[in-house]
């Protein structure tokens, strides 16, 4: 297992920039997810690390060695593709043996290691089958087995679970986590699904429009998003503008004091966010809360909770309140927004 280090990596295709100034470090044995919407550059980033593309600028280091100009077959990596790319004309055994053969491992050892890795992924005895005889989940495991059997320095997974149905996906997530723990290989996992990334990663890199927006562990990405985009991506329902006032050490939100700061505060416009479930209903004014009155405009019943849309004076868009299933609201309501739950966001 090795570290992965990117230093200001940029990739341009003609006039289009797919990745801009990406820098991060993945430590040994870490499970890192690259999370972002379609077209944000995450797959390109993966392909750069794998060697299928060369960076226009910047450096890529694996295990401390600069690899930017090494072709993929010299990088000692393992890759699991979205389509699995199992060679249809070879058996499962032969598919797995492929990487070992390239490393001049002798036949007896190939057989032994192939059988071992099949056990690790839970497919003992599947060796003689052909890819077309495998189910989606089984094919995925073979692709994984094939990529790890020769103990690569790093493991790269390009949306490997997106072709599976929901239940299988949950199952495979646990499997992936278990296997990665057992082998301890530094892993980079590309996905557009935030719940997936939160579930299995040690660290998450959020990307949008070719740039890295935020890097952190799942708790900080979920609980403390730093930009408008990241907040929106992890499901913060309410994001709106506020105004900061210099000198008074306070940030004001439509006339009410939202937060008191020591020392300098920045002037100008700010974006803040607050989750629907962090808003309370209270007719009495509460300490350390921003009180807002509003009118209920719509409700969705979701079984375990009710989602309300409420028109208020602090934002042109309605505020989303997530309440318990038993809480029925209608007409005029008084909302309490806790100062502690406000997220101060950068625009990006």
């Amino acid at each position, binding site marked *: 297992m090795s570290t992965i280090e990117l230093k200001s990596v940029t990739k341009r295709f003609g006039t289009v920039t797919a990745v801009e100034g990406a820098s991060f470090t993945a430590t040994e044995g870490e499970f890192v997810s690259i999370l972002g919407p379609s077209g944000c550059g995450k797959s390109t980033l993966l392909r750069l690390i*794998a060697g299928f593309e060369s960076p226009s600028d910047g450096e890529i280091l694996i295990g401390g060695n600069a690899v930017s100009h090494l072709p*993929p077959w010299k990088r000692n990596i*393992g*890759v699991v593709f979205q*389509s699995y*790319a199992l060679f249809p004309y070879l058996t499962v055994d032969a598919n797995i043996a492929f990487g070992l053969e*390239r*490393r001049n491992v002798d036949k007896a050892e190939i057989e032994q290691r192939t059988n071992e890795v099949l056990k690790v992924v839970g497919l003992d005895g599947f060796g003689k089958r052909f890819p077309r005889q495998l189910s989606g989940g089984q094919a995925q495991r073979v692709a994984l087995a*094939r990529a790890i059997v020769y103990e690569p320095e790093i493991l790269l997974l390009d949306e490997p679970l997106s072709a599976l149905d929901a239940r299988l996906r949950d199952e495979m997530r646990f499997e992936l986590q278990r296997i990665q723990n057992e082998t301890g290989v530094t892993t980079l996992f590309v996905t557009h699904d935030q719940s997936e990334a939160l579930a299995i990663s040690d660290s998450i890199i959020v990307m949008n429009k070719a740039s890295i927006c935020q890097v952190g562990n799942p708790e900080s990405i979920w609980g403390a998003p730093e930009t408008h985009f990241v907040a929106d991506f992890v499901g913060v329902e309410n994001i709106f503008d506020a105004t900061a006032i210099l000198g008074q050490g306070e940030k004001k939100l439509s006339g009410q004091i939202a937060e008191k700061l020591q020392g300098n505060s920045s002037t100008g416009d700010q974006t803040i966010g607050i989750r629907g479930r962090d808003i309370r209903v209270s007719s009495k004014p509460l300490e350390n809360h921003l009180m807002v009155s509003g009118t209920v405009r719509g409700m969705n019943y979701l079984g375990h909770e009710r989602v309300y849309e409420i028109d208020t004076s602090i934002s042109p868009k309605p505020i989303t309140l997530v309440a318990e299933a038993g809480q029925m609201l209608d007409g005029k309501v008084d909302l309490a927004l806790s100062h502690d739950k406000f997220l101060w966001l950068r625009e990006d």
Partner: protein
Amino acid sequence: MGNSSAISSSAMWNIGRYAIMCFAGFWCVFLVAPIFVVIVSAFTAGDYLTFPPSGWSIRWFIEVANLSWFRSSFLTSILISTVSTAIAILAGVLVARALARYQPKGFVFIEFVALSPLILPAVVLGFALFNVINILEIEQHALANLIAGHVLVTIPFIVRSVWSAMAGTDVSYEEAAQSMGATPTVVFRKVVLPMARPGILAGSVLAFTYSFNDVSISVFLAGSNAKPLAVELMSNMEYSADPVPAAVSTIMVAIAIGFFILVERIGGMKMFVGK
């Protein structure tokens, strides 16, 4: 809509439907007729070519098998078609790879050159070669000339078929092999070629068939020491009143059926559709 109009329009449409089916049936008969007639009359017991045949016998096939011109031209055709298809495969697979995966500058030029024998009429290609051969005074090397001419016309079949197969293949397979340590040569041998195999096989069969059946190029390049079967058949057809040409034709049709089934097995009807 009243009941009566529904009935009458359905009657109209039924008549129309049957008319179309008959029409299509006629075309099927039309397509099969000449081949059918030739095959059936080859099995005649009589001395002359008639349809319907007078009696049934395979005597003419035995007769043909003993004809020296049949045996030598049959072998010549097999030799020419095999060698030219083989050469076309060697050159064609490489260029198909270049066209499918690389987009070099001058791509259009390469594509045009590789497929050009399909654009120009076979007669013209044949005559142009004939012209050059006469100028160079090498017409006595008929076998080599024929092989050269057939290589020319079979290359596009291979290129088209293999290119299509390669272009339709996901590049992930090659990348997966690369990620596991396979150098480009290994990737070509162990991934590209196996995945292109149906295209190579289908293209080869089509190329071989075309070459075996060809007359347009072969009439210009044939010589006294090398004549393909189709050319011999052509001259035999003109002066012979016996069923020998029918028997030879039947043999050629049997070979064609074999190849047709082979291509169908390899990739199905879609091998013929798509240009």
